[in-house]
């Protein structure tokens, strides 16, 4: 840093700054390698990554795999007026299995898992496997969006209030207190009666609540410990602007912790979504929690249609668990004391 600031101007600066960029890249590569090694030391994070990979595959393969069901599964009624190329993919929201089974009678829905429907069908005759796969895409987008938003805000707010302190700090900390005071789930339920809560809005709300809530406090205390380090003083003396110091020195140093919270954020966002869906308060065409909600509102109990509970329930658990595992794996990065001696 000092190097860059001491160069006045002109072409020289360009050359050096490029080499600086190169140095940075090398450093980054080095750090990445080190971190990866530490990360993989504990199998826990790897297991999580594998499961996430599996879910990514599931989400991507949905349209491909679902072509198998294609038009034969869709009733002629649903085909008409449909865009034909779209109809090639089984529609997990409107699709209805009317084809006769072995005994030439139409399947009675919800049908238990079979070769035709590996995860069974729901009370409206729709294939549960395709619903699970279709929802995986949405859950990914939703979870990552909300977690990114929350961590971005928390990191920024944490760094800023740690660096400036004083009134800004007091304001954000009281705000965090306020957010922490809210009983979380009742508040979301209350919000759902207030506005038509779809996935995007829910992600936004969760992101904002997370971004100004508890995570901010933790990230701020981490940033505080960085702020008192000697090199920050050095940067200040060298004339680095406030924002330069915040973005260049403080934030990069709290990023591992942010990344850790990113993973936990996905878990908690998807969990909240699933819970709201279960209570029937979320407005979405389909989601894992809604599969269970449909079963409940049509009156199919766990005893009568176990697959409508077990399969989405286990899916949610696995999905949330995988991000949590990666988070745990990152823990050793964040906290060197946890590493093996």
């Amino acid at each position: 840093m000092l190097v860059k600031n001491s160069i006045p101007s002109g072409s020289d600066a360009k050359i050096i700054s490029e080499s600086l960029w190169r140095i940075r890249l090398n450093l980054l590569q080095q750090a990445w390698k080190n971190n990866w090694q530490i990360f993989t030391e504990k199998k826990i994070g790897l297991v999580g990554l594998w499961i996430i990979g599996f879910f990514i595959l599931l989400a991507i393969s949905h349209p491909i795999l679902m072509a198998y069901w294609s038009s034969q599964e869709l009733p002629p009624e649903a085909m008409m007026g449909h865009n034909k190329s779209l109809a090639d993919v089984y529609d997990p929201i409107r699709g209805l299995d009317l084809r006769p089974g072995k005994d030439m009678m139409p399947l009675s829905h919800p049908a238990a898992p079979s070769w035709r429907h590996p995860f069974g069908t729901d009370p409206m005759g729709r294939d549960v496997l395709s619903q699970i796969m279709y929802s995986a895409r949405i859950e990914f987008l939703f979870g990552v969006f909300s977690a990114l938003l929350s961590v971005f805000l928390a990191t920024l707010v944490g760094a800023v209030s740690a660096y400036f302190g004083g009134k800004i700090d007091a304001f954000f900390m009281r705000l965090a207190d306020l957010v922490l005071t809210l009983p979380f789930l009742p508040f979301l339920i209350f919000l759902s009666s207030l506005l038509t809560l779809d996935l995007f809005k829910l992600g936004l709300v969760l992101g904002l609540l997370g971004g100004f809530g508890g995570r901010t406090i933790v990230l701020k205390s981490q940033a505080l410990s960085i702020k008192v380090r000697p090199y920050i003083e050095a940067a200040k003396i060298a004339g680095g602007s406030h924002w330069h110091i915040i973005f260049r020195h403080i934030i990069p140093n709290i990023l591992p912790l942010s990344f850790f919270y990113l993973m936990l954020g996905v878990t908690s966002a998807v969990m909240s979504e699933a819970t709201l869906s279960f209570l029937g308060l979320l407005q979405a065409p389909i989601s894992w929690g809604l599969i269970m909600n449909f079963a409940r509102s049509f009156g199919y109990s766990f005893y009568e249609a176990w697959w409508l509970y077990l399969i989405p329930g286990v899916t949610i658990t696995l999905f949330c668990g995988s991000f949590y595992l990666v988070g745990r794996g990152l823990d050793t990065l964040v906290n060197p004391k946890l590493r093996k001696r």
Partner: protein
Amino acid sequence: MRKFFIVILAVILVFGMTSLAGAEKIFKVGIGEDPTTLNMWSALGPGESSMYNYVVLNDLYDSIYGICYPSYNFVPRLAQGDPGEFVQEGEYYTSIVPLRKGIFWSDGNEFTADDVVFTYQTMIDFDLLGNWSDKHPDVLVKVEKVDDYQVKYYLKDEPGLAEWNFGILQATIMPKANWEGVVEEAVKQDNPTQYLYSHDVKDLVTINGLDFGKWEKGAFFQTVAVKDFRTGDVTRIYENGRHEIEGLDLNWSAYGEAGSELKYEIAEGPFVDSAIYRLYSNQEAMIMALKKGDIDYLLSAQGLTKGFRRELEGTAGIEVVTNPSNGFRYMCFNRARYPFNIMEFNQAVATLIDRDYVMNQVLQGAGVPLATAVPPGNSYWYNPEVKIWGEGLTRAQRVDEAVKLLAGAGFTWEVKPAVDLENDTYNPGSGIVLPNGEKMQTFEILTPPAGYDPMRATWGLWIQLWLQDIGFPVIARPTQFNVILEKVNQSKDYDAYILGWGLGGSYPDHLDAFFASDGGHNRNDFKDPVFDTIIKSFMKATEIETARELAFEAQERLAITLPYIVLFSTPIYDAYRKDVIEFPAKEVLDGIQGFYGVPRSVQIIN
């Protein structure tokens, strides 16, 4: 350490091993929510929206006339016979009603005309709302005592059946001795009504054999039998519809000649020692409790769903009874907006909707397709002859029919739907142009969200698809329930919506409330002078036969003008332990739950 804990556990267990209730006959019912009050004024007033207040309190009180279980016919309860003919007396029309002798309140006082006069006077003085409101319409001036067993009603005008038999006369009577002091105290307050409603009742004074026992909020509610207070009423209903009621100081018959075969004989006890209403906020757990035998019968606001029926039908010792519900779900266009006020437009939409397909194929028979605002379960008033648009047609035929209707009203297309009737196929149309030459703008059908009601959300999806087929730019938008209500009732900012009604009684005066130009619940600005004439004479009808003819005529008119496109109704399932209890009649409009499990007539057989 460990030994100590074992000893403690053993001690605790010993305390746990105490014998429970003995050989009492207890009717055990599962309910979904706590009642909110013990105060009947309040329960029928602001507490009216909680069904469970009725469930636990309804059978502790009685009215002068009521509706008969299971036929929903108008019958005397505390009255000694039919109400007297109306006589003009000066500016008023009066009718004298005889009361039964020898019926006692649970505090030992006899039921007399004083109680009746007191109840009506309180209703009028306090202008009680909720369920009380249609018991004292403006037309009722006062009620006077003639002697201990006769009361005289003073009305401004001769009322129709809706106002008289199915309104004023069905008021719940409250004990004067018990409440007089409270009412006097209330009058002195700043807010008398609130004082009356919030009066904390400790000892309920009830009538007709059932009394309040115990209430553990959040756990259970118990009513107990008062054996000495039985009226011994026996109701006999015959195949031809004849009703006979025999009991203490009452021998009454109506609705047909004698000589037909006996259909039901319903005795009133109570035959149980007590009834326990146990709270289960988790319906699935309620079902498990029924299967396990913790409860004998269950009552839940949303009713049993198809899945639970499937589960319970296979269980030994449990009987599931299916009955038609007294209500319907419908789609409705905003008749204040163009082009939704064009009758042919509504007819075309009705033609395109295949109720049978959605209900029986898509929703797997979770409901019953329905096309009129009087459900067939209400058999006396249901008109089976009304026009059902597109009935029995294939999809292509429906499209053909709808195109003809729209074209007849002046709609045109950029690409007209091409129907090939021979092969029963068609190609979708697009770009509908309205009769006034403008291109049709995108409109929305508001439906409750899938999480709230998957059935109506599914209907929305299919209706959207069918309307798009013919070229309408339409979107079914799942919307929060209270948002729909706000748009429909307050801001009137909507194109179309799908909602439902649950109807209280069997008398179809809701047709007036929903569809008359001045109807209290005319939500979509539907105006039809022809219909208005029919429905107003229906409301004024004093003979049941005339009323029926007019109701039929009204339904026929509605089937043509289509203010509501009625879609379906849900069946009502009642499940009970047939090895423990028995109900005297099981074919009931709206199910046995419509009568809250008839605690006065249910029998414990085991």
